[in-house]
């Protein structure tokens, strides 16, 4: 038996709350009788898990400490899946109970574990109790964003911004949805608003730089200089003592992308998913230099990394991974040319190669 709220007979001796959850819960072939006093929820091991910020952050950042944190959490809580299982059971027990904090925590827990439908339901339950709680709206917006419910995400973030203008996170999140949607003017406005609230907000500054870098190809050099300015400011924010890296004027855009990536990598402890995004942009940069120049080993490295990060459910990462797979595939076609002559096999391989080359040329990165 584990520690925490897994009380059995002794629970009756404690001051018992109005609601006691009793469950037979099986894991790894062992059945546990779990009794959780609802009022003791904050001390229960499920909520303890919610509060284990180190684990959650490790999951988000995929830091080197992930393995260690997970092992520690497993020692404390049985296993990750057992906690998830209990969280799902708790969810049904909490139905009808008006405790916005519990719903919010459970919702956030499901969000982190990509149980988006459950997360949405819990956060909506929290919102029903406190419709004007900006934090709930912010998390609900994030859940909707991940589910591709862009209109709902925008509505949540906009309301969160209107309700509580102290947090630049809300405007930044709004900007990110717009950026992904291709609504660049709205995205720019949101990022600028985030920077107005907090001029030192590095993630918003980098998102804005990213937006300008994305527009360079379409709308000229004005955006290139705006991006450069933002990157210089970000650089100074991160390290006021260091000098801005030199820019090669013949590959101005690529130089800026490289600086952008370095900055993203450097500030990954401050912004979530920044390291994932950095990989996207590194990949993008490599593609802009000419995907045919990427070596097989480079592609393998990208794929391995993108594949690992892809579990977090970012649309652009998935798209990059798809493109990487298809570029990687051409090396296997080239290897197949070693087939012995005869049977028209070489003719077919050449046809496939030419068709595949056309496909690669038409992909959107």
């Amino acid at each position: 038996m584990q520690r925490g709220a897994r009380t059995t007979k002794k629970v009756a001796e404690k001051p018992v709350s109005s609601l006691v959850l009793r469950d037979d819960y099986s894991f790894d072939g062992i059945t546990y009788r779990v009794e959780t006093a609802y009022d003791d929820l904050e001390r229960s091991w499920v909520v303890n898990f919610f509060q284990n910020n180190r684990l959650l952050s490790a999951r988000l950042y995929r830091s080197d400490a992930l393995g260690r944190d997970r092992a520690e959490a497993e020692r404390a809580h049985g296993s990750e899946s057992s906690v998830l299982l209990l969280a799902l059971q708790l969810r049904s027990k909490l139905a009808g109970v008006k405790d916005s904090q519990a719903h919010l925590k459970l919702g956030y827990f499901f969000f982190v574990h990509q149980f988006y439908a459950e997360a949405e339901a819990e956060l909506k339950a929290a919102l029903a109790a406190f419709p004007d709680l900006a934090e709930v709206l912010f998390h609900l917006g994030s859940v909707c964003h991940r589910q591709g419910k862009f209109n709902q995400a925008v509505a949540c973030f906009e309301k969160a911004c209107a309700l509580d203008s102290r947090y630049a996170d809300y405007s930044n999140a709004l900007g990110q949805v717009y950026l992904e949607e291709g609504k660049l003017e709205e995205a720019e406005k949101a990022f600028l608003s985030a920077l107005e609230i907090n001029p030192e907000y590095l993630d918003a500054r980098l998102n804005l730089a990213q937006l300008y870098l994305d527009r360079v190809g379409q709308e000229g050099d004005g955006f290139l200089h705006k991006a450069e300015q933002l990157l210089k400011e970000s650089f100074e924010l991160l390290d006021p003592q260091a000098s801005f890296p030199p820019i090669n004027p013949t590959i101005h855009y690529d130089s800026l992308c490289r600086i952008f990536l370095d900055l993203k990598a450097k500030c990954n402890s401050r912004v979530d998913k920044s390291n994932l995004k950095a990989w996207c942009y590194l990949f993008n940069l490599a593609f802009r230099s000419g995907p045919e120049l990427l070596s097989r080993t480079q592609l393998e490295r990208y794929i391995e990394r993108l594949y690992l990060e892809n579990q977090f459910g970012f649309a652009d990462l998935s798209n990059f991974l798809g493109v990487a797979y298809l570029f990687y595939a051409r090396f296997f076609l080239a290897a197949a040319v070693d087939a012995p002559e005869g049977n028209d096999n070489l003719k077919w391989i050449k046809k496939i190669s030419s068709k595949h080359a056309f496909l690669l040329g038409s992909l959107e990165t």
Partner: protein
Amino acid sequence: MDDRTITLEKIARSEAAVRPDAAALLGLWHFEKKEYPAAFLAFSTAVSSQPRFGFWAVAAWRSEWGAKPLPADFVAKAPLPSACFWAWTGKPDEGLAALKKAGTVAEKIHSFLEVYLKLLSLPPGPSSRPAEFRERLEELIWEEYGVSSDRTRNLLALYDAGNLAGVLAGLRPSLEQFFAVPPFSSVDYLWLLFLSGIGNLDFACISEALSELEHFPDSPGWKAQKAAAGQLLFYFFLLRAGLESFEKALKINPNFSKAVKNTHLVKKEKLELVELLKQFRVL
């Protein structure tokens, strides 16, 4: 019964089994398991695409039924392998009749069988031999064993001495070569999965199948052909993985225009690419 056997049986019962290339692969599998009647039927289905499969069908037939005459419908659709079978059973008239049905095929096997069956039909003794026949025999033996090898000299000496049985015995290994059935490799198994769309084709199993090829004895071009098929399987896997990634991106964000375009493009091109891949002959 292991997973592989269950999958193969599923494929054998599926519509894909009537494809000549799939039938030939299934034939190899049955042959390896010594299920010769099933192998014969499978190779017979495949013979329409490559006459070579007819020889494998004959190999399966004789493994099960020995010198029992081949079914007439098989003889009609595979005259050259049938002629080879008659040569093996020592029946030159049936063999020459089957060879006549095959027409003038510019294949090595055709000229070999012509000479072999003629030798079978000749009465023993030096008097009855047509003069021009020696030249054809000489040409064939040169091609098989070289111009000045001991074996060549020995066989021609046997012929000149009227020992036709000795010459036939010397040529027997060359005849046997036509009945040689290649092994059923893991690449063949995975190619069957690809052709049928049944079973799970993943990166690790393709790598494993290619490593396994090292354990097979090399025969001219066999390993290279299997290795090329393996590379194409990798290609197919990545093509599919690429599409799945785009679809995942779309699932997360249905309005993501880049993913919309890429999904549409790959879906459209994949159909044609897969059809082209299926044209590759793994056997």
